[in-house]
């Protein structure tokens, strides 16, 4: 036990400082795919989430339920669905996107949207209605009101974003299926870790985990500054 973990940490340090090109490639793919997908998801999910949070409409509870359910959509199934769509005999087969980082971004995007939508909705709903009234009475239109509420519930929204990013970067089922874990191309930290695990190289798997966590910590440091910052 202790062996593998210490061995893993030492290996992690070695890999980082020898600038192993394969490891750096994996870092690049992992973060590019997960950051892109989460940001794109935020672009789509924030408006949707806040719309649902702001408005009252028939069937709101149903929609809420659906979002909550899709927060737990199994990545493997999402991977399968995206695979079937991009497969050579699927509807988008001719695009030739399968086994590319684009496909991985699509899958993670679809997984992140409900998470960000759900947390944004809850955050917007938690805002004091008096603030909403004040902003409206000052002449804000819907878009401006929306932006105000987003700013106001920044903390919870960033927390939601971080959860989604965390899930994306640590997710393996979907990227494995649609990305193919192709060495030098679509291999990410997690698919790599799975591979090492399958090979019984637990030490190496942990080394990769250590590197991933370390870099994620640095990335989060930036995002967290937003959260604990100005506010």
């Amino acid at each position, binding site marked *: 036990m202790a062996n593998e973990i210490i061995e893993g940490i030492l290996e992690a340090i070695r890999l980082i400082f020898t600038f192993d090109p394969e490891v750096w490639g994996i870092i690049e793919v992992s973060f590019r795919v997960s950051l892109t997908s989460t940001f794109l998801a935020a672009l789509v999910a924030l408006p949707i989430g806040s719309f649902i949070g702001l408005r009252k409409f028939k069937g709101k509870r149903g929609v809420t339920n659906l979002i909550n359910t899709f927060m737990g959509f199994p990545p493997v199934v999402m991977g399968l669905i995206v695979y079937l769509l991009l497969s050579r005999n699927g509807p988008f087969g001719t695009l030739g996107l399968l086994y590319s980082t684009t496909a991985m971004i699509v899958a993670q995007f679809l997984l992140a949207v409900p998470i960000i939508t759900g947390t944004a909705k809850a955050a917007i709903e938690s805002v*004091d209605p*008096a*603030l909403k*009234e*004040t*902003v*409206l*009475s*000052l*002449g*804000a*239109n*819907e878009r*401006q009101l929306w932006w*105000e509420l987003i*700013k*106001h519930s920044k903390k919870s929204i960033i927390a939601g974003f971080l959860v989604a990013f965390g899930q994306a970067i640590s997710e393996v089922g979907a990227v494995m299926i649609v990305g193919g874990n192709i060495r030098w191309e679509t291999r990410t930290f997690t698919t790599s870790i799975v591979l090492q695990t399958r090979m019984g190289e637990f030490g190496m798997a942990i080394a990769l985990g250590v590197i991933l966590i370390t870099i994620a910590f640095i990335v989060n440091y930036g995002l967290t500054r937003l959260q604990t910052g100005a*506010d």
Partner: protein
Amino acid sequence: MKLLQVQNLNKEYYKGDKSVIGVLSDINFSVKKGECFVIIGPNGSGKTTLLKIIGLLELPTSGQIFYDKKDLIKISRKKKVEYRRKFSFVKQKPVVRNTTVFNNIAYGLKVRGIKFDDYQKSVDEIIKFIGLKGMEKQNARSLSGGEMQRVAIAMNFIINPEIYLLDEVSANLDSMNLKLLDEFIMKIKQDKEKTIIISTHDPLEAIKYADRIAVLNNGQIAQIGTPNEIFTAPKDEFTALFVGYENILYGIAELDKATGLSKIKVNDLIITASSQQEGDVKVCIRPESIGIVKGPPKNTSYRNTFKGIVENIRELGNICHLIVKCKSEKFLITITELSRKNLGLEIGSQVFINFKATDITILSS
């Protein structure tokens, strides 16, 4: 010209136990352009609810609100923003955005698409005016109660709306800042294009600002009229009890350079006041401030003494209300029953009324 017309307005809420409670019922009134309309009523009478509905922040259960003949209740979401921009709304409990004083005050202009360079100066000016110079960069959430109230006022006044909705706007303001508010409101009243609707539970505030007053009781309008009508001739007991009594006279003031006092011409009376106002004014004299003497008083500090006839007497326990007519003006006077008996006052008695120049309130109108 009726700018705003409220028709058959009703508002109901669901209570905790799901029973329905009517908060406003069958409200009808209209407000003219340039008018200052004050809604006065006790706690829970529905003032805030009414203002919120007018400000398009809440929907009525039924009824119409016409603005320039357009029914505001029925318009689309998008149109509502457009109309909402014609209103400003100072909330009873001011809420500020979690940012600096400057940004809060500038917000209304910013959402209207005005650029920083174009609003910076006017925001700075209004900050100075409300006495918060040097606090521009302070987070508005950390302001004191009165400071926040002033920011809320500035926030709403800077957008220069058609109609000002002011919900208990003087709450939390100390006497000095109240004067500031008076200045603000008087300035708006001078602009005949601007309309003001104020809610208050303070009769003095109603007197100060109102061209017309609506008395709200339990969600219904008990009386609408000029301040004088309301304060000297309340239609029902509720209004009488709630607003109290006050003599309100309209006149033209001139400053007497020699004495430093104002001479106010109210119809055929000349009233002396220690305030140094000039022009069109409202003169408020509390019924308790006026004394009655049988013979013409001499050698007194009472600057104002008029001869009159007791027109009416209303007994109210140990005190009574007298209506005394002096030339063409009527005065309401409160004295003790004992005094009345001692002086042998009856309807038709001739008396002299007395009040001090320092004991009247002059408001420019």
